């Protein structure tokens, strides 16, 4: 049936839901409930992560096929079924999701004090949705998980968020929902055309270029909002600012990747002509995203907002890489998504550390933190360097590969993307200088404590990964090598067809 011998992917997907069910039945005093809920959630997510490591070890890197496949026919007369599986593109995103959830639960250990039980349930449900989304090989399931992610996220921001949380939550919800509805139409059309909802079977469709254009636009509406691409990015800073720290981590770490993943899963293989046709538009939007949002980040006075804008800029590199349609660009884009998931997630955690102590996200409120929190300063420095893509940290290989790939597509695009190197260094170092360096100006800052053991544990896996991905990226790149190669071949073959037909 599959390499693991048991339905691993379903287990990964629904185990958190079981954990959530258990938490639901915890009864007792409030403090006891809170503590039990925390531990249950942590253990559930840790077990899930442990199980997901099977993927890391048993995944066959030599093939581009779907692996660990589970397929159950559900409504055969409509071609609907339960279909799970991962290929090189999705497998690391599953691991990223299962890794970040325990990190988030640890990060919320003390920060969240009200309605702990509900919070933990929301997180576990969120994990189910995320993992399910990356594993789903059936458009209907994909859509359900894709949309389902929104519900816990909406609650997390709307209930445990900051002062303007309701505005931010609605903005997030409406923006993404609006895009997704068009995607639903596109998926219905695909289902109707193919007579099945199974993604591998839909891949066999040969769509007319004029239909492709409409489908592409429909998918674009949804994925562009999720990525987010300029100019539909403004929900992100608001959502990040208002979300609790862990919410931001998941938002930056996994949710933004769903858009890029969508492009790779649907737009590229299904709509080759339209992809080629729209690539210049995407390049233009990506370059604008990189330059524009980097500049905007430079002007921010709120730490989280600054990092949120930097996320938009980094995701601009990702979309640029995806639409280069060559091996380097695509690999770089996937790698950049993974590294951004780690690094920007970690940066939000860094902000969270200060926020937990001082309860302010305002940059001007800080200064001279290095003096009293040297370990924190070092950790923050590492992730700052990761964010500005210093070679040897996770941010670099992705950005480098994308720029190499983009050069082949269009040197000016590569130049635009590379401008992000300068601007990125500008806003991140400016942030770091104002928060961590200079003299301590406020008395209350002198009483801050350096990282606690719990915070060390939270950061440890991210630090390790940031360095590992930077120094030895091969161990990650090898996962999607075959899949990317297959994607490129497939695309080139599809582009060759109409030319032959034209002759």
């Amino acid at each position, binding site marked *: 049936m599959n390499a693991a011998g048991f339905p691993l992917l379903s287990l990964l997907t629904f185990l958190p839901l079981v954990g959530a069910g258990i938490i639901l039945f915890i009864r007792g005093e409030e403090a006891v409930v809170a503590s039990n809920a925390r531990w249950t959630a942590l253990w559930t997510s840790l077990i899930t992560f442990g199980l997901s490591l099977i993927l890391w070890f048993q995944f066959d890197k030599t093939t581009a096929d779907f692996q660990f496949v589970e397929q159950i026919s559900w409504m055969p007369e409509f071609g609907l079924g339960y279909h799970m599986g991962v290929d090189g593109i999705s497998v690391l995103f599953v691991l990223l999701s299962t890794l970040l959830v325990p990190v988030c639960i640890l990060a919320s250990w003390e920060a969240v004090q009200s309605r702990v039980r509900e919070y933990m349930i929301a997180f576990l449900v969120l994990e189910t949705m995320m993992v399910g989304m990356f594993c789903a090989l059936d458009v209907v399931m994909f859509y359900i998980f894709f949309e389902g992610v929104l519900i816990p996220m909406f609650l997390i921001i709307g209930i445990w968020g900051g002062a303007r949380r309701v505005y931010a939550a609605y903005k997030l919800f409406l923006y993404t929902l609006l895009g997704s509805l068009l995607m639903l139409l596109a998926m219905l059309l695909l289902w109707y055309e193919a007579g099945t909802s199974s993604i591998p079977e839909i891949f066999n469709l040969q769509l007319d270029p004029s239909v492709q254009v409409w489908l592409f636009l429909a998918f674009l509406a949804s994925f562009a909002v999720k990525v987010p691409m300029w100019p539909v990015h403004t929900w992100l800073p608001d959502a990040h600012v208002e979300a609790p720290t862990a919410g931001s981590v998941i938002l930056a770490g996994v949710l933004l990747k769903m858009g890029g993943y969508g492009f790779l899963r649907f737009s590229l293989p299904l709509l080759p002509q339209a992809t080629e046709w729209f690539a210049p538009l995407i390049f233009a939007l990506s370059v604008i995203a990189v330059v524009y949002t980097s500049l905007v980040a430079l*002007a921010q006075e709120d730490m989280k907002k600054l990092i949120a804008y930097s996320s938009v800029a980094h995701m601009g590199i990702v979309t640029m890489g995806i639409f280069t349609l060559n091996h380097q660009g695509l690999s770089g884009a996937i790698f950049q998504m993974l590294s951004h998931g780690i690094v920007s997630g970690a940066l939000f955690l860094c902000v969270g550390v200060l926020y937990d102590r001082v309860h302010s996200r305002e940059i001007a409120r800080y200064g001279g933190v290095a003096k009293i929190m040297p370990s924190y300063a070092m950790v923050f420095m590492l992730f700052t360097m990761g964010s500005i893509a*210093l070679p*040897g940290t996770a941010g670099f290989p992705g950005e*480098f590969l994308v*720029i190499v790939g983009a050069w082949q597509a269009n040197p000016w695009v590569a130049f635009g993307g590379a*401008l992000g190197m300068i601007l990125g260094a500008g806003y991140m170092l400016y942030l770091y200088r104002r928060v961590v*360096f200079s003299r301590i100006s406020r008395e209350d800052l002198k009483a801050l404590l350096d990282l606690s053991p719990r915070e060390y544990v939270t950061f440890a896996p991210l630090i390790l990964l940031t360095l590992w991905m930077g120094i030895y990226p*091969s161990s990650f790149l090898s996962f999607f090598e075959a899949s990317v190669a297959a994607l490129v071949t497939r695309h080139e073959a599809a582009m060759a067809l109409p030319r032959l037909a034209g002759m």
Partner: protein
Amino acid sequence: MYVGAVFFPLLGACICGFFGRWLGDKLAQWVTVVCMALAALCGISAFIQVGFNHAPATVDIVTWLDVGGLQLSWALRYDTLAAMMVGMVTLISTMIHLYSVGYMSHDETQPRFFAYLSLFTFMMLMLVTADNLLQLFFGWEGVGLASYLLIGYWYERESANRAAMKAFIVNRVGDLFFMLGMALTFWTFGTIEFNGIFQGVEAARQSTFAGMPVLELIALFFFLGAMGKSAQIGLHTWLPDAMEGPTPVSALIHAATMVTAGVFLMARMSPLVEYAPNVLGFVTVIGATTALFAASVGMVQNDIKRVIAYSTCSQLGYMFFAVGVGAYQAAVFHLFTHAFFKALLFLGAGSVIHAMSDEQDIRKMGGIWKKIPVTYALFWIGSLALAGVPYFAGYYSKDMILEAAFAGHGWTAKYAFICGILAAFMTAFYSWRLIIMTFHGTPRADHHTMEHVHESPAVMLIPLLVLAVGALFTGAYFYDQFVGHHWAEFWNGSIVNAPHNHIMHDAHEVPEWVPLAPTVVGLAGIALAYALYMFMPKLPGRIAAAVPGLYRFLLNKWYFDELYDRIFVRPARSLARKLWQVGDVKIIDGMPNGAAALTVHASGRVVRLQSGRVANYAFAMIIGLVLFVSIFVFGVGR
């Protein structure tokens, strides 16, 4: 041995950085010093092995990247060029570590300092031993990071933070082109490993990219990258500000090693750069202009470290125009000797600053030479070498560069020669202005400081002495190998001159007055400095008052900082603010928020229709009925 030279500093940095707090200051320091000493042992023996026994080697470590034909490994490439750099970097870094033990003894966070210093050394070694462009870029950015951390070492000083940021960002401008250069290299040669590139050069000579010869374009990108790191005119603004860092840092990073990385890059890429004649012309002009510009600014600065910083900038200009005329060997030779005497000068300056209770303004010094005689003597040696006085190290290398420039072809080489001679005069002038103002004349410091003036401890003087030996003898000793009769065997193919390039030969056959010229102008510069500052100390002020425009132009460093502030920094800031407040908040967010407001507004109006009065409803019904009936009767009927 090969691996040890590179990785001992990393070991030291890790031990000191992560466990420094538990080891205590003293132990942490000595751990890094010992690690560096081991590295220097390995490095120097590697240099002897590779350079003199002609046994180049490549040590593969592990595969780094493998993406669709882009294959790279971490590997250490030891050819003569790399081995020479390794030997030089490890030796000088060891001396500077040792010196720092004394210089930083009053600092609060010494392990941090030493960890950074060792980290820097490691990155620099990675840079010079790189086997491919990406690894070189790793070191390139790594030294940038270390430089950023060390310039901003005293992070409580706002000016230090600003200088650190400036250094990093200006360097990044160069790095952008480096990155694009790598991309173009990959698509041209299908690899970015040096061996592969160099083999492909012959085939790529005819290919063009967007109408331009591809080799020219690649060389241009790399040179623009090198300009950032090596502070050439236009991207030099960060270097003088970088003097905010502790003095040993200025000596190690901003004089002896990191800033010369650009020159190293050009030498490393010589097989490719040789076939980009137009870019070489550009390099010559930029290098020569930098040499002249920085020397002219150096003549009027009043901060002891800034004078030396501009001097560094100017000497880097010399190296670049040597590259530009095709004499890479001469450039690298000057790089090598310069490392010794410039480190010596900086450390000497540090010793002075140490003695003067952290005073850096030479207008507040003077009359201290009797109190710190050793430093004074060493400062003389450094300055003599810098000015190119015969038989000191700088004499050999600088003469070689100027001879090469004279022998070079085209107007660019002539321009470089003239600039070089003028700059040599200025160099001697500002060096002795510095010596006289710092050590001679009436004491201008306050009474309190003067009482404290003392010679530095042995731990600081020993490194100075070692470097002084270098400044005295490296020129004479290595001349034959680097640029003399044996250069071809010595470099062993690690630096390549194209078949049409005979500069190394021609440079030795210039008219007799050419080798003499730099010495003559140098001595003239010294004499002028003596005349103005020793014997007629009132005169310089009067000259400055007579040409206030020129003086201010030089004092303000040709107004580069102000210009960049106007055209880049401030517009970027205001644009950033506008994009945010207008672009994002008003326009992009305005639309959905506006739509939402419109909906609320409209529904508010619609609500009013439901007034609750039966008469209104009945009236509306009748109007509707009339409308429908009329449409039915008149409309459909026809």
